[in-house]
């Protein structure tokens, strides 16, 4: 009970501090904080099209974050998630460009290809870690850049637009490959996939032997091995699951939102998802709302540059400040609790 109160308390303190820091930044750049917050709200959920934008940005973020809940449970820092999003997008783009069939078939195959692309890339980092002893942080980081390099190469090389090589992206995919939308932007299939993913991960971690064993391997690989679990199998599975979900996010981004392959196809959602999961305290149940809050800030933040002439990166500043303060305040409370225990024991 006390722990729950402390958790809520630390979140409140962190949020209050983050609001203060943001307000101070806004005041310093000559903007009214209240006006800014109103603009962010309006720019993200204030109208139908805006809300559609926000929801479509929410999808890849939730997918990547759900995957990260699995890898974090296994004790892995899957920084390679960004590259896994990119590889999913590349694989889906390949299908969208090369596979000509009825729309439903193209879309299904493209989404599956996205999952496989991300999965293989995740598995690659996993194999490097398990069999090559290459730390997943640095291996994953390396693979992020390889994936980004590949996408740039494709966009200005083999897949360049007819006549001109430009980093603005490939030609748009054939319409059959686009996810069907309601209105201009909103692709219901994408939303459904994201919701299903987060629910699946929640139950995977709560209800299944797989989730329990994954937690065991993550918390103490040596004990897990002695108890009889194949640690490498679980580490690889976690990387594969996260890669698959991130890849699906990339695929949705490519065929559901951009409708072409662009160098910045990942939208930074992989790295942002790490922040989401840190803020969620690694719990699947909090992923969806926190991710929504984050994309609101990101999408709504663009209004600040349009209306107030502020740099749109303010959204990122708010997200980063919030996570940093939450982590620090949480650490501070644990430290105080430790000291209290020590004092009680001595007294």
């Amino acid at each position: 009970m006390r722990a729950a109160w402390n958790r809520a308390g630390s979140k409140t303190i962190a949020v209050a501090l983050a609001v203060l820091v943001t307000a101070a930044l806004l005041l310093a750049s000559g903007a009214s904080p209240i006006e800014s917050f109103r603009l962010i709200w309006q720019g993200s959920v204030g109208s139908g099209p805006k809300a559609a934008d926000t929801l479509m940005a929410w999808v890849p973020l939730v997918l990547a974050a759900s995957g990260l809940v699995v890898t974090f449970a296994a004790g892995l820092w899957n920084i390679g998630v960004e590259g896994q999003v990119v590889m999913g997008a590349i694989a889906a783009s390949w299908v969208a460009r090369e596979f000509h069939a009825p729309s439903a078939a193209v879309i299904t195959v493209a989404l599956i290809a996205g999952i496989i692309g991300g999965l293989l890339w995740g598995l690659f980092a996993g194999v490097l870690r398990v069999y090559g002893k290459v730390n997943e942080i640095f291996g994953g980081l390396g693979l992020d850049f390889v994936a980004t390099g590949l996408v740039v190469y494709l966009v200005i090389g083999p897949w360049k637009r007819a006549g001109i090589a430009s980093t603005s992206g490939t030609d748009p995919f054939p319409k059959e490959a686009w996810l069907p939308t309601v209105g201009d932007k909103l692709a219901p299939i994408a939303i459904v996939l994201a919701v299903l993913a987060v629910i699946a991960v929640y139950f995977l971690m709560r209800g299944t032997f797989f989730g329990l064993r994954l937690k065991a391997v993550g918390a103490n690989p040596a004990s897990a091995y002695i108890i009889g679990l194949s640690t490498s199998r679980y580490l690889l599975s976690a990387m594969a699951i996260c890669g698959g979900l991130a890849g699906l996010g990339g695929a949705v981004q490519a065929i559901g939102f951009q409708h072409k392959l662009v160098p910045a196809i990942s939208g930074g959602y992989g790295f942002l998802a790490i922040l989401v999961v840190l803020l969620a305290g690694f719990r699947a149940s909090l992923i969806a709302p926190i991710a929504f809050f984050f994309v609101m800030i990101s999408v709504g933040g663009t209004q600040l540059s349009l209306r107030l002439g502020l740099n749109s990166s303010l959204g990122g500043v708010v997200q980063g400040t919030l996570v940093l303060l939450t982590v620090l305040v949480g650490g501070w409370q644990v430290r105080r609790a430790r000291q209290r225990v020590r004092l009680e024991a001595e007294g």
Partner: protein
Amino acid sequence: MSLELRDIHKHFGRVRANDGVTLRVEAGELHGLLGENGAGKSTLMKVLSGFIEPDSGTISLDETTLQMRSPRDAIAAGIGMLHQDPLVFLPFSVLDNFLLGSPPIDRDSARGELDRLAADFGFSFDPDAPARTLTVGERQQLEIVRLLWLGAKVLILDEPTTGISATQQSLLFEALRTLAGQGMIVIFVSHKLEEIEVLCDRVTVMRRGRTVGEATLPVAIDTLVEMMFGEAVAVTGRPPGVRGGPALRLDGIAADDRLTRLEDLTLEVRAGEVLGLAGLEGSGQRTLLRACAGLLATTAGTIEVGDRDVTKRDYHQRLAAGVHYLPAGRLEEGLIRGLTITEHFQLASGSNRFLVPWADARGDAEKRIAKHSIKGASDTTAEALSGGNQQRLLLAMVPPDVKVLLMEHPTRGLDIASADWVWGQLIQRVEAGTAVVFASADLDELLRYSDRIVVFFAGRVFKMLDASTADADQLGHLIGGRDVA
């Protein structure tokens, strides 16, 4: 010169490692500090060397009270400690290790000092060799030389004979006698009676965080044993169980874990038999247990369980074949911090189902908690249990019908009640036909529960004993590498 520790208290969580310890040592004295593992000797010495700040108590040297906040203060006061695992920097050269933390001096002079001091004791080092190429014994020698060079007047050695050769041991003992002869205070910490007996002038015995007695040597072994264990050990053999066919058979196996090498080891354990593995720590017992469990590859020979050849099978396949291993580090290689008792039982169940039946799991866990009298609830996490209850949980996780149970220090750090309970459980299993192979540093435990005892010395089987005819004295000598039969 005299050293006095007065009323030292130090606790870790719920454990009172030092509970009002008082110790006095005079100059020129080789003072032994004797006690079982977990008696509080290391904690006390770490307090004395400034490594641990005590909760309360004072330390005085030459009747002056010392302010000890860190090892820096201890070094300044002339107190140096050689830790059980010598605290050297493995990738650094011997000379760099010698210099690190010393007062300013140029490298050439330091090289000369190192050579001179080493020669005084008959040690020899290559100053440019990386410390990782040194044996444990040589690392100790380096540390001793370094501490003396820093001006240590009080030298503490924590279980220094662990993992060193017989030659190195005699060289070490010779050096310690010389130092004491020069008027230094030498405190020699050990849980091995034999060593204290050979080396020390006086001895203080610790038990459960307190000093329980002092004696000037030589003294009758029984007196010390009584102080260590609290009562004269009446060795009562376990009634021999019903022996079945061979449960585990090793034929000419060899294995190497970089610390100890086993060679050409042949051994047979029958169903319903208890085999004790005795020896100084690091003499080969752990190597053997891990080789049998499949955690360490054998380089020669065959291992059979029942009539199945499992030589080429890995740990998990041997687990399936009925070989279970419980290592000494309960929270390191057994239980998982943060997971509850229920979750542990479910992990150990090896179920093929997809969903965890949480509702049944809790009830099942509660039954097993009651059956194994674990003090904890189904949602208690592993690290919140006491050592004894952790061991009960670990045993409860092993299925009842295993063929071979390999255990490392089954009762180390446990209170008497838990230790008795653990052995009660083990005996039940043995009577049902399980073969138990266990390593222990507790002579009493070895003699009381084993059918046969294998004594290891320096990586080989030194002697095989029938436990019913052996006694503590003989076993102690054998462990030290002396066969006086």
